[in-house]
């Protein structure tokens, strides 16, 4: 109909490339490495750095699905409780006579179930906000964990199980290896597949996505279930590191995870941000914490640092989104189909 031709080759722009948030995070990591090794002689050696990764990577698995959840403009604050419940159920079923391999499967199932339940409630009751749903299940899941184990701890796992928490493959911690593999997997899933594209679409404009034939409900269910599964994986690693578990493990993990995702440049207004950013943020917070630990900074200072870092990073990401962001508004966060 029209003779006009439209360009379909994207020019590479240095400016756009360099203005990415991820560079800021990489710069932060470099600064942290420099500062850490200058204030502590124990930081800059291979064992130290690989030991460090082992201490903070367990909760980082939840970061992957949380990135997707926050891109979809939702939130899940029940993940910490899910970790606790999955871990407790795993230990209990094992001590009730189930082989460890099966107990691990049960753990993953419990995680998946918890996540699915969150997703199900959100999809069934579209008018409910994710904050309220996951706040309720957060109390509920940990409550169930307490019902099962009360204040006891449960452990006595077979020795091979501790490999999850402490094992090395060559010089590389097993947990790091798995993290990298999953990180690549999730990054590809989010950025290179139809599924990922649809996740962004949902976060940018849920109604338009639904009208475009995107199966919004199904995708939300999948992502929330994934969050549950990843929480269960965290539970496995955490339990393996402790060799036993209790209902109060993984307390406040959700906050750490959300802090990492927010620092990773994922806009709280939905639709924006990259997996890489969040992965880098895991290392920023992890090494920062570890470095401050090496100079034996008191725990309370650490709390302040993390809190301020979270707010500062969100402020900066907000500045980048420039004015588009509105403080939570009903029409913003909840689609209206009618």
């Amino acid at each position, binding site marked *: 109909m029209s003779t006009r031709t439209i360009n379909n080759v994207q020019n590479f722009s240095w400016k756009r490339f360099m203005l990415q948030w991820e560079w800021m995070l990489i710069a932060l990591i470099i600064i942290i490495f420099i500062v850490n090794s200058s204030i502590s002689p124990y930081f800059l050696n291979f064992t130290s750095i690989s030991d460090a990764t082992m*201490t903070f990577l367990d909760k980082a698995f939840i970061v992957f699905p949380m990135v997707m959840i926050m891109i979809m403009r939702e939130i899940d604050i029940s993940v910490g409780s899910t970790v606790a419940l999955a871990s407790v159920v795993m230990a209990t079923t094992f001590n009730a006579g189930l082989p460890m391999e099966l107990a691990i499967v049960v753990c993953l199932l419990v995680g998946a179930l918890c996540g699915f339940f969150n997703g199900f409630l959100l999809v069934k009751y579209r008018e409910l906000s994710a904050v309220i749903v996951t706040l309720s299940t957060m109390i509920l899941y940990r409550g169930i964990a307490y019902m099962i184990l009360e204040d006891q701890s449960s452990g006595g796992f077979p020795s091979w199980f501790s490999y999850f928490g402490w094992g090395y493959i060559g010089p590389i911690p097993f947990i790091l290896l798995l993290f990298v593999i999953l990180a690549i997997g999730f990054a590809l899933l989010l950025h290179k597949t139809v599924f990922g594209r649809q996740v962004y679409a949902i976060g940018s404009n849920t109604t338009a996505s639904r009208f475009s034939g995107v199966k919004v409900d199904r995708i939300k269910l999948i992502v929330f279930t994934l969050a549950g599964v990843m929480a269960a994986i965290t539970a496995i690693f955490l339990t393996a590191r*402790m*060799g036993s578990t209790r209902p109060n493990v993984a307390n406040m993990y959700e906050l750490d995870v959300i802090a990492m995702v927010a620092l990773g440049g994922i806009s709280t207004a939905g639709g924006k941000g990259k997996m890489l950013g969040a992965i880098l943020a895991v290392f920023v917070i992890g090494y920062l914490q570890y470095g401050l630990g090496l100079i034996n900074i*008191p725990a309370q200072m650490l709390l302040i640092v993390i809190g301020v870092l979270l707010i500062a990073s969100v402020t900066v990401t907000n500045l980048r989104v420039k004015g588009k962001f509105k403080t939570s508004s009903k029409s913003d966060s909840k689609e209206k189909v009618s």
Partner: protein
Amino acid sequence: MRKWWSFSFLLVIFLTVLVACGQQTGGSNEDNSGDSGSEGNDGQRHAVIFKSTGNPFGEKLMEGFETAITEAGDEAILRAPDQPTVEGQIQIIEELISQQVDSITIIGNDYDGLQPVLTKAMDRGIKVLSADSAVNGASRLVHINQADPEAIGRIQIEAVAEMIDHEGQIAILSATSQASNQNLWIEWMQTELEKPDYENIELVEIAYGDDLRDKSVSETEALLQSYPDLKAIIAPTTVGIAAASKVISDKGLQGEVVVTGLGLPSEMAEYIENGVSPWMYLWNPIDLGYLAGYAAKALADEEISGEVGDTFEAGDLGNFEVTETEDGTEVLLGDPFKFDPDNIDEWKDVY
């Protein structure tokens, strides 16, 4: 507008961080005196990890530890996670392993949960001992026991019996038993109660206040409601005993219901003076830390190895011997110390 606020906010943060850093390098903060030091190069470094920050018992214990280590001319590192969790302690231990400290003294948040990381520390040549709240025998070389659990359990029953003339209902208000100490003591209390001397004493309930103020208060109130004839509450936990005493004072039940157990003199001074708690017990956390400090030093110097029969000298406290327990070996500090109206004044400002 929003932009302006954002920038000014970031500026405030930046300045605050600068100021905080400035203070940090000023390094007058006692808590982290450990970081200032590269002075004595051949000096050893000994770390102690308490359950969580903001606990006066812990502060005093670490103070004692630091005194001992300083006396020996070494450097002390005092750490605690912000929450009483195993995860937090694991992270700290990893950091200490990276720093290649010479010894780690742990006040465990869980009996078994620290075994993997402590084993790793020992594999890297770090001497590990526990104090106050033990970790299992496989994860430590020796445990510094504040007092014999048997003695702690029995002495509280004896005290209660004396307070209520060997007759009436009593209840126990415990913490959560995660650190397993309380459960062990309660077992010994129950054993002691089987003696014919106490046949008129009835233990009606063991309640758990979770070591939370509000919870301990409601549990105490529930006990008083459910058992109107209750004569005494034993609270072998510092939070529980203070909460229970507070409830009794507020209700004006002095003399009708007595409270005893294990409490901090500073927290309990008020109630010992007003008679709610005629007396109570605790060990001296400063001494406990002090002893742990010397034990850590002795282990690091390979003066002792944690075997039964080893002996070492702990500064002003004299000589101690390593003894056998059901799970591993231990060093016993001594009997619990009794705090009563006569001596509480001199102790309440100490810890």
